[in-house]
């Protein structure tokens, strides 16, 4: 490989992003894996995230940070769920258009919650993950999903209902 100072023509590669890579890779991969629960998908989205960083730096953007990478990974995750939603839409009818929510005050079991989330429709999973796992305010969730705040609130109602229905039908049953 070329090394600085020994090569007269092209510049040495900027190791800025590469030196960040070792530290940032487990953060980005861990973030994605915990939310998409698939090693193959997490690897794909991790690759897309870092390549986006290369392009952003080449375009003269600010130096990449872990926070920037996580934000970009979140966008990649939303894109992934959106693709998944399109694929599954033809196979399955979204149930429950009623937006009336019964009061529910369960104490959620973490492992069971994760399993329930994994099994939800991608749209519901995206909304709940961004809103509650990532703890983002509704307007941020709306922006990430490309929806209005009102539509996002309605989606969250449906997603919570779907979650509750799935949760109560698994494991120990309704309290």
């Amino acid at each position: 490989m070329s090394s600085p100072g020994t090569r007269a023509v092209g510049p040495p590669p900027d190791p800025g992003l590469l030196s960040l890579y070792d530290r940032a890779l487990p953060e980005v991969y861990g973030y994605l894996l915990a939310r998409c629960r698939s090693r193959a998908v997490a690897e794909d989205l991790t690759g897309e995230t870092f390549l986006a960083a290369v392009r952003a730096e080449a375009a003269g953007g600010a130096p990449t940070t872990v926070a920037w990478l996580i934000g970009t990974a979140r966008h990649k995750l939303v894109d992934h769920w959106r693709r998944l939603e399109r694929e599954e839409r033809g196979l399955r009818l979204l149930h429950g258009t009623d937006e009336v929510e019964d009061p529910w005050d369960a104490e959620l079991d973490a492992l069971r919650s994760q399993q329930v989330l994994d099994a939800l429709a991608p749209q519901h999973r995206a909304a709940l993950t961004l809103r509650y796992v990532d703890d983002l305010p509704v307007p941020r969730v709306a922006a990430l999903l490309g929806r209005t705040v009102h539509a996002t609130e309605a989606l969250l109602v449906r997603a919570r209902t779907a979650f509750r229905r799935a949760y109560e039908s698994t494991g120990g049953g309704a309290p």
Partner: protein
Amino acid sequence: MTAADPDRPFRSLAGPTPPVAPDPAFAAALRDRLRRELLLQQRPPVPAEPRRTPMPAISPYLVVRDARGAIAWYAEAFGARTVDGPYPDGDRVGHAELEIAGATLYLADPYPEYGLEAPGTAKPPVSLHLAVPDVDAVMGRAERAGATIERPATDEPYGRGGRLVDPYGHRWIVQSAPAAAEQAPEPGDAVYLTLNVPDGRRALDFYGAVLGWTAVPGRVPDGWQVEGRTPMVGIGGGATELGMVPMYAVADIEAAVAAVRAAGGEAGDVERQSYGLSASCRDDQGLPFWLGQLS
């Protein structure tokens, strides 16, 4: 009660996500891909200024502590132009290419991990020989900019020259060709042309692009001494009156000044310059010119 808050049960889902190291093979493959992408993105770099000279067979490649500072210093002291880079590498400069008086100089910050270190306290074993038309101007400029003069300029059979060590520890031999003993200009010859322009640097860029001129800094701010032209050419920046003013050689400047006035022109005071005596004049129609009695 909280039962009315639909968010309540879901709040427990939030929490920090632990980092997870992916499969090492994946990590290595992605790192390799990023390295290739970064290389692709950096080519072609947009040169800071167009390169005027083809790549020479041998070019000095300096290791300097504080390459950014050095680039500015060589620009100030020697009129160096950055023709490529600097390419940042974290806090360091990984590579930069300068053009000094038509020659190429590469430089980079130290890379101790590659065994590339800046000069220490020992005397540098290699000197950089810089040929300039005006040794005193260049050495004076370098000294004011912080160079250590090792040997002040003296006249030698092979020309006027001196030695200095720049603030980064590199030694320069600043040298001019022997005084042009070949043919002294005849009285009445045009010996020097001064281009008066608002922006000297810009004029140099223009004539560099059109005529291939190169120059070293002159004695005044934004003044440039064009190299190797006959007659000699200088560029004066900061001028409010655009124009080219010739200098005509005369044998006796006092007599010539008197002749200018007698013929209906205007002549300023006779001034001493490094090359002899000069006087700023206008002919009887107002066209400016200089008279020069060259020593």
